[in-house]
Each structure stands twice: as C-alpha cells, then as structure tokens.
C-alpha cells in the first residue's frame, strides 16, 4: 500500500490523534499525540490491510527548542505486504512519559530502554526500565540538546575521574627504562650463577 494511503487510513481511524502528516524523501511520517499510541500500534499491527508486524527502529528526537516536545519515532514495516510508515509521537518536555509498546513487540524492550537512557523519556508499562548503554549513576541524558559536550570538571562522572587519576599515576611509570633495568638485573643474576 502507498505510504500516503496508509497515513490516510490512520487519520480516518484515529481522527483526534493525528496532528500532521509529513512527507519527506518519499517516506511518510505521521505526527500523532502520545495518548493512544498503544492502541494505534496494535491496530496497525492487527489490521489485515496493513499488518505492520516488524518494528524497524524506535528512537527519540529532541525538538524542545523548536516546539517544546520530544518525539518518539516508530519506524514500522510490514514483512508480508512490504510497505512502511513512520509514527512520530509527540511527548511534551515537561511530562516525559509515553506508553510502552513492549507488549506488542518484545524487541521494543531494549530500544525503549535506550531511548530512556539517552533522552530520558519514560515508557509506562515497560517491564524493566533501567539505564542500558550508560553506566548506572550517570547524571543527565546525553542526547538532549541541552546536554553539553564537555561537562565542567566538578560534574564529571566519578568513574571517569577515577580513570583519569589512574592513568596519571601510571603515566609516571616508565616502561622502557623499567624493562632495560629488568634485563640488566636478569643479566647480573645470570652472571652470579
């Protein structure tokens, strides 16, 4: 099915939810409100004409500077019918929550965890929402546009601070001369024997 026709179908089924339909490079993205995202995905998956059974990718995008929202982007594709559509669910920045779709796709589990980890979007109904790529105890969400590229020294993550101390300690150690002196010692020992 043509992507625009799919978008039209979604619009007919959920008239209150669809905010905008955007076309870009032959692909169609449907910007939707976050409230009915679970029902919408279930419908997309079960509707015999669409059968969007494969969740290609799930990620978050920070549009806070533009319109005060985050977007969770669902790229869906149908393996038997060979078409795809993109859902972009808007999540307001002051209330970063959206329903999880792990009950529909088990594979969404880690993708949602990653999205939570890097953008701080909370997925309601997710079985095990923890940090995944970043170490536990990390502060802040790096993929937000407000997150600086270089943190001030006092806000640096403790693990990194320790690592830097260790490397400073080890850099005083001169491997080459140590090796030479070891060789000299070994030579002296052999000479003794």
């Amino acid at each position, binding site marked *: 099915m043509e992507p625009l026709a799919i978008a039209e179908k979604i619009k007919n089924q959920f008239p209150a939810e669809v905010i905008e339909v*955007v076309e*870009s*490079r032959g*692909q169609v*993205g449907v910007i939707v409100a976050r409230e009915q995202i679970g029902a919408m995905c279930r419908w997309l998956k079960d509707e015999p004409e669409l059968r969007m*059974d*494969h*969740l*290609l*990718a799930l*990620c978050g*995008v*920070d549009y806070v500077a533009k319109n005060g929202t985050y977007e969770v*982007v669902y*790229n869906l*594709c149908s*393996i038997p019918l*060979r078409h*795809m559509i*993109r859902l972009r669910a808007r999540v307001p920045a002051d209330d970063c929550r959206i329903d999880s779709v792990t009950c529909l*796709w*088990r*594979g*969404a*589990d*880690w*993708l949602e965890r*990653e999205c939570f980890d*890097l953008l701080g979007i909370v997925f309601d109904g997710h079985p*095990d929402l923890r*940090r*995944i*790529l*970043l*170490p*536990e*105890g990390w502060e802040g969400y*790096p*993929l937000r546009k407000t997150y600086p*590229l270089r943190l001030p020294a006092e806000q640096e993550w*403790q*693990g990194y601070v*320790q*690592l830097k101390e*260790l490397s400073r300690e080890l850099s005083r150690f001169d491997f080459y001369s140590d090796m030479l002196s070891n060789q000299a010692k070994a030579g002296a020992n052999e000479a003794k024997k």
Partner: protein
Amino acid sequence: MMGTEFRNLAVPVRDGESELFTVQMGPQHPATHGVLKLNLWMDGETVVRCDPDAGYLHRGFEKIAENKTYAQFLPLTDRLDYISAMANNVGYCVAVEALLRIEVPLRAQYIRTMVAEMARITGHLLWLATHALDIGAMTVFLYCFRERGLLLDLFEELSGARLTTTYTRIGGVRQDVTARAMEKLARFVEEFPSRIAEYETLIDTNRIWLKRTKGIGCVSAEQAVQLGFTGPSLRASGVDYDVRKHRPYCAYDKVQFEVPIGVNGDVYDRYRCRMEELRQSALIIRQCLEQLPPGAIVADNAPDLVMPLARPRQPMAGSSLATGYIELVPNNDVYPEGDVYVSIEGSKGELGFYFVSDGGGRPYRMHIRSPSYIHIGGLATVCEGVLVADVIAIIGSLDVVLGECDR
C-alpha cells in the same frame, strides 16, 4: 581498586530467585564476542533467567554524529560492525544520499554492491570461524581466516586499509577499482564455492557439531519477528525478509540471487542459512563483475569532503573561516530539511540509519538501528531454559558484534 563503583552490578532479583546460582559471564570472555556481559541465574546447569548487559563499548556515536558533518562521521561507521566495515560505509552513504537527494552513478552502485557482498563474506567467515571455535571445532577457524585474508588484501588494494576501510564517499566511492583487483576478485569468486565445500566437509555432518547445534535455541517465526530479529537469524526461522529484496538499494535489483530460508530456527539452521548466503554472495559478486558498466564513480552534485556547514547570513567580502565567528543560517539547498530512514542488509541483519536534518550541515539527530543490539536484546528470551553450554552456541549463532551493539 575501582571495580564496583564503576558499574552497579546489582541487577534486580525477582522472587524465588535468591536460591539460584548466579554466574556473571563476561565482559572479558572469549565466547561473548567482545565485551558482552551476561548475568545468568541458574538452577544446576539450566539457565532460568538471562540478563544481557551491554554498554561496555559505548562511545556515544549518536551524540558524536550530531557534532560532525555528514562526511566526517563516515570513518566512524567503520567502527560499528568492524568486521564488515564496507557494508556500514555503504549503508551510511546510501542513507545520507537519500537525505541529501544525490543520485549515484551506476558504476559506483555496482562497485558498492560488490564491496558490500565482499563485506558479507568476510563477516560470515569470521562468524563461522569464531562460532565453530566456541563450540570446539578449532580447525575451521584456520580455513576461514585463509579466505578472509584474501578478501582483506583486496580491501586494502581498493581502499588503502584492511579493516577500517572508509571506502565509499557521499555520492560515490573513493576511487575506481583497478583491473588487477577485479581479476583477483574474479579468481577468488571462482574458487570460493570449493572452499565453502571444505568448511562443510569439516563440520556439516560432524556428529559433535550436530549434537551441539540441532534443536538448540529454537526461535519460531512469530517469535523472531516479535523480537525484531533480522538477517540470517530471522530467515533461519522461516521468515522471508531481506532488505535487498524488500527495498532494493545499490544494484541489488539488477542482479539475480536467492534468499535462503530456514525451517526450524535453531542454531543449525542459522548456520546453514549463512553458508548458503556465502554462495549467493559469490554469485552476486560474479554478476557484478560481469555487468560492471563504465562511467563516473562520483555523482556530479556530490558534496566536497570539507562540507560547508551553513551559509553566512551576509556574505562578507574577504572573510574566511579563520577570521572569526560568522552568523549562520540553514543551508536548505544543500541540506534540505526532513527525515529519512534507510536500511541495508548488513552481514548481521538490517542496519538502518534514521536521519533528521534541520538544514544545518550536521545531522540534527541520527539513530543507528543496529542488528546486534536487537539480537542481544532478544537473547534473554532465547536463552531461557537452555543449558549453560548452549548459551555460547546461541550467542555465536546470532552473530553479534559489540562495536555495533553499543555504538
């Protein structure tokens, strides 16, 4: 000295699991193919629950990409799936070209198809080598590396590096293929099927191999789609999904090949699927060699490597980048606004790039859909109730690379 503060090792323990024996497999374990750590809860030798722990190799690629130009990020894609870097280069460039609306000349498309298939062969050979090594068949490793070495030599001749190739460019490829390299490749493709037969002689009907792989780690078709598996791991379960056929890119719609489909979805079927794919890849390369058209290797509207970031608000006479800060406005005719998701069939599965452009010279957001990440995510489900020795076989058969998983 600095162990436990680094990473909170405590994974939530569920009710009734406190009696179980826990094993932390990895992150420095040769059979986890990188720095993957598995927390296993075991009842005797049976795994009751498996909780994979990724992120040890996280380098923040998606954040880096937001601060580099499109061309500057290209060498970093080598470091995603570093055992078949060519395929990543191709995938990245195909996605950026879709975003920037660049039409790639036919010759470059054929060259890309060719190197992507070569990358698939190198990837699958390394997979077979290490997978067999994990299960206990040491000899296969040596045979696979012999052929992999030939291909890496070819990569070096084409691109100047064996692993981190950076061969493609936005709008084409770095340099044209030489006649000598093509001759070598033709000879390799001619010989390769007989080499595959050698590997098969070693393990295909070997009773130890069969015992270790048949009926282990079965994934049903429905389950595989649910978990988001792609590539040979999905096709072994009997689902016909191949990006090369579904959404053809490069020259895949101009060559003939078949997609091997498995039946049982166990470790053995995943192995068979990949072996058939090796043959198909050789077939594709041969067709590309035959059909390789003359012509340009870079698109006419391809951007320069030094990509302009955005237009200055007012063109200042005699100013240069070095003279100071210039106020910039979006450069919509070079980098049109919009978003695009493009995926290719890498050797591990579907490698997708989701780009959002805001008109600046850098991606506003780039998401990498890496197959390994999703496969490791599904490991918990597949490993439930298997023996601990089979966990190794299952990790091997899913073919994960942690560089791609953790990004």
